[in-house]
C-alpha cells in the first residue's frame, strides 16, 4: 500500500516531477497536434492532388490493336462500353492538346508588355482541354470548380449550365468567337476576365506529311474556374470538344475517357481490371495491361507514395520528442533516487522489500506518465480541433500571419484527429517512460539501504 501512498506523496511534494509531467504533456500533445495537422494536410493535399482527375482514366494508344484493327479515333464506342457497366456513374471524353496563349482585344496592350517580360513566359504554355459539358459535369468536379467561392465577380461564368455560351454583353467587333474557360491563376496572371479575348497558337502535325503546321485562333473568355490544383488552374483552358477538334483539324476526337464510379473505394481497382480486359477484347484500346486504363491513384502513384512516406517520417521524427520527455523522467527519477537514499533505507528498515522500493519508484513514473500523457492527449486533441481559432488568435496577438492561406490553397488549417493514433501515442509515451524509469527504479531497489542510514 505504501507504494501508492508514497508515490503520490513524492509526486506532489517534489516540484521536479511537475517538470517531467509537463515534458510528457508537451511531447504527447505536440505529437498528436502535429500528426493531426499533418494528416489533415495530407488528406487535403491528396484531394487537391487528385484535383480534376476522375476515378478512372482511359487513355487509348491510337495504334493498331492486337487483332490488327485501328483503335478508333472517336470516343463513342468506349463511352458506350464503359457506361454499360452498372458500377459506372458517368463517363466523359476529353481531347487534350498543348498551345501557347497570347492575348488580343482590348487588353492586348497589357499582354504585349507582359509577353516582353521574361517572367511572363512561363505562363504562356497552356493545356487545351476539349470537353462535352454535360458528360463532364456528370463525371468530374468541373461544375464545383466553376462555382468555387474564390471565383468572384467578372471571373464567374454567367450561366453554369451553359458555360460555353457567349458571355453576356459580349459584342464582337468582327465575328463571334468560341468561348473558353480559363483557370483562375492563369486568368490572374494574364488579367483576364469574362469577355476578355485571347489568342491561342498551336502546332498540329499534318496527318499525311507529318510536317507541323501552326494554327491560331481567337477565343473569348466565358469565365474562370478554380480546381484547387495549382498547376491545373495555371495552365488549363477548357474548350468545347467539337470546337477543339475543328481548331486542330485533328482526326483524333479524344485523348482520354474519364470515368466516375458510384463507389470508387470499393470498385475502383476491380473495375479498372474489368474495363481493361473488356476494352482490349473489343479492340478499343491497343493492348491489355499496358496502363491504358488507370485509376487516378495509378496516375499519381509516385506523388501519393511520397506523401505517405512523408507522414511516416514525420511520425518517427516526432516520436523523438516523446523519447526526450521520457528521458526527462529518467533524469528526474535518477535524481530522486539519489536524493531519497535515506528514505529508501528507512523504508527497508521498516520492512519494505527491494522489489517494493523498485515498485514505488515505478509508480512515480507511472503517475508521471499517466498524468502527462493523458493531459497531453487532451491538449493535443483539443488543440487539433480548435487549431483554426488558436492560429487566428495567435496571428492577431503576435501580429504575424502564421498560416498563409494563399500559399496552401485551403482556407483553414486542416486537422484530422485519429483516435487510434492518440491511443497509440499515449501508450507509446507510457511504455517509453516506464522503460526509461525502470533503470533508476531498479537501482533504487538494489541500493544498500544501510549506507544511507549510518550517517546523517
Amino acid at each position, binding site marked *: *500500500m*505504501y507504494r*501508492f*501512498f*508514497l508515490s503520490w*506523496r*513524492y509526486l506532489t*511534494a517534489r516540484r521536479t516531477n511537475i517538470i517531467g509531467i509537463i515534458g510528457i504533456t508537451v511531447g504527447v500533445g505536440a505529437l498528436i497536434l502535429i500528426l493531426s495537422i499533418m494528416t489533415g494536410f495530407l488528406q487535403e493535399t491528396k484531394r487537391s492532388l487528385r484535383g480534376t482527375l476522375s476515378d478512372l482514366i482511359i487513355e487509348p494508344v491510337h495504334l493498331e490493336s492486337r487483332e490488327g484493327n485501328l483503335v478508333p479515333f472517336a470516343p463513342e464506342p468506349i463511352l458506350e462500353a464503359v457506361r454499360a457497366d452498372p458500377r459506372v456513374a458517368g463517363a466523359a471524353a476529353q481531347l487534350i492538346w498543348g498551345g501557347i496563349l497570347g492575348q488580343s482585344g482590348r487588353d492586348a496592350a497589357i499582354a504585349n508588355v507582359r509577353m516582353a517580360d521574361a517572367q511572363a513566359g512561363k505562363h504562356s504554355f497552356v493545356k487545351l482541354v476539349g470537353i462535352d459539358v454535360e458528360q463532364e459535369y456528370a463525371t468530374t468536379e468541373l461544375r464545383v470548380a466553376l462555382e468555387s467561392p474564390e471565383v468572384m465577380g467578372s471571373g464567374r461564368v454567367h450561366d453554369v449550365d451553359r458555360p460555353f455560351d457567349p458571355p453576356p454583353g459580349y459584342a464582337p467587333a468582327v465575328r463571334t468567337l468560341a468561348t473558353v474557360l480559363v483557370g483562375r491563376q492563369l486568368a490572374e496572371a494574364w488579367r483576364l476576365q469574362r469577355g476578355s479575348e485571347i489568342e491561342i497558337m498551336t502546332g498540329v502535325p499534318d496527318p499525311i506529311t507529318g510536317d507541323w503546321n501552326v494554327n491560331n485562333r481567337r477565343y473569348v473568355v466565358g469565365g474562370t474556374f478554380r480546381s484547387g490544383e495549382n498547376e491545373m488552374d495555371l495552365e488549363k483552358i477548357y474548350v468545347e470538344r467539337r470546337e477543339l477538334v475543328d481548331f486542330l483539324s485533328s482526326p483524333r476526337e479524344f485523348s482520354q475517357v474519364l470515368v466516375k464510379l458510384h463507389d470508387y473505394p470499393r470498385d475502383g481497382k476491380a473495375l479498372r481490371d474489368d474495363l481493361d480486359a473488356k476494352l482490349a477484347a473489343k479492340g478499343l484500346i491497343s493492348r491489355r495491361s499496358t496502363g491504358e486504363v488507370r485509376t487516378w491513384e495509378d496516375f499519381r502513384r509516385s506523388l501519393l507514395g511520397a506523401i505517405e512516406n512523408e507522414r511516416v517520417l514525420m511520425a518517427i521524427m516526432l516520436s523523438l520528442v516523446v523519447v526526450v520527455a521520457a528521458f526527462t523522467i529518467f533524469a528526474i527519477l535518477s535524481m530522486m533516487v539519489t536524493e531519497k537514499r*535515506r*528514505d529508501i*533505507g*528507512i*523504508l*527497508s*528498515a*521498516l*520492512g*519494505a*522489500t*527491494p*522489489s*517494493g522500493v523498485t515498485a514505488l519508484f515505478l509508480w512515480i513514473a507511472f503517475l508521471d506518465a499517466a498524468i502527462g500523457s493523458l493531459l497531453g492527449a487532451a491538449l493535443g486533441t483539443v488543440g487539433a480541433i480548435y487549431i483554426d481559432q488558436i492560429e487566428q488568435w495567435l496571428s492577431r496577438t503576435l501580429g504575424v500571419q502564421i498560416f498563409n492561406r494563399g500559399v496552401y490553397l485551403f482556407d483553414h488549417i486542416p486537422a484530422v484527429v485519429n483516435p487510434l493514433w492518440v491511443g497509440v501515442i499515449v501508450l507509446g509515451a507510457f511504455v517509453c517512460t516506464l522503460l526509461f524509469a525502470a533503470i533508476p527504479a531498479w537501482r533504487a531497489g538494489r541500493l544498500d*539501504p*544501510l549506507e544511507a*542510514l*549510518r550517517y*546523517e
Partner: protein
Amino acid sequence: MSSRASPATARPAASPSSTTFVAARDVRKSFQVGDRQLEVLHGVSLEVGRGELVGLMGASGAGKSTLIQILGLLEEPTSGEVHFEGISAWKLPIAERARLRNERVGFVFQFYHLLPELTAVENVVLPAMIGSSFGAWRKQRKEHFQRAEEVLAQFGLGQRLKHRPAQLSGGERQRVAIARALFLDPPLLIADEPTGNLDSATGEKVLELLLVERERRGLSMLLVTHDERLATRCQRVVTMEDGRVTGDVRTAR
C-alpha cells in the same frame, strides 16, 4: 502486559533456548573498502532473551551498529548465523525477512529517520502501511490513524499530529520515531543511540519514554549507547571493542 525479565544468563555461543529472542552466532562481517577487505566483526556471538534489556557499549567503530543491524535483519553477515525467534533468518526469502523486520522489530535511530514528506501521524502509521495490502489498508486505515493519533497524544504530541518532521524539534521527532517503532507492537526494539543527537534534558525525557514503554509492553530491547549512566539502567551490558565482545555483565537491576 507485565515485564518478563530474562531468567537465563546469556552465554556467548550458547544454543538458542526457548527464552532467547534473537541470537547471533559467530557472526563475521567484512566490507570491501577500495581493494581491501575490512573486517568489522570478528566472530561475535550474542543472545538477547525475551523481554531482556541489553545495553551495547563501545567506542566508535567497535562494530556496535553493524551488529545491531545484523541482529535487526537489515544487514547480512559475511559468515555466521542469526537466529530470530529460533529461525535462521538469513536463510529465509527476502520477503519473509522483510515481513519480520516489519512486524517483529522496531528501530529507533540516532537521527530519527522520519520521512520528510509525511506528517507525524503518517510517519507513525508507515509500518502498518508497509505491512498491508491495498485492500487491507483501505479497511483498516481509519483505525490505524486513530491509534497513531492516540499514541502521539499520549507521547505529548497531540498538537503536532499534522506537522512535518522539519517543523518538529529533535525531541519531538524522536518521540514520533519511537511511536513508529512501537506501532505494530514488535517484540524486539533496537535503539541505536536514541539520545545521541539530543541535549541531555531532552534526551533524558525521550529515554524515559522509551524505557517506560518497553517496560509496559515487556519488549526485548537492544540499546546502543556511549553513555555510562544510561548503561546502568540496563539489565545487562555488553561491551564491544574492535569487532569483538569483550564484556557481558548483568547489572544489579
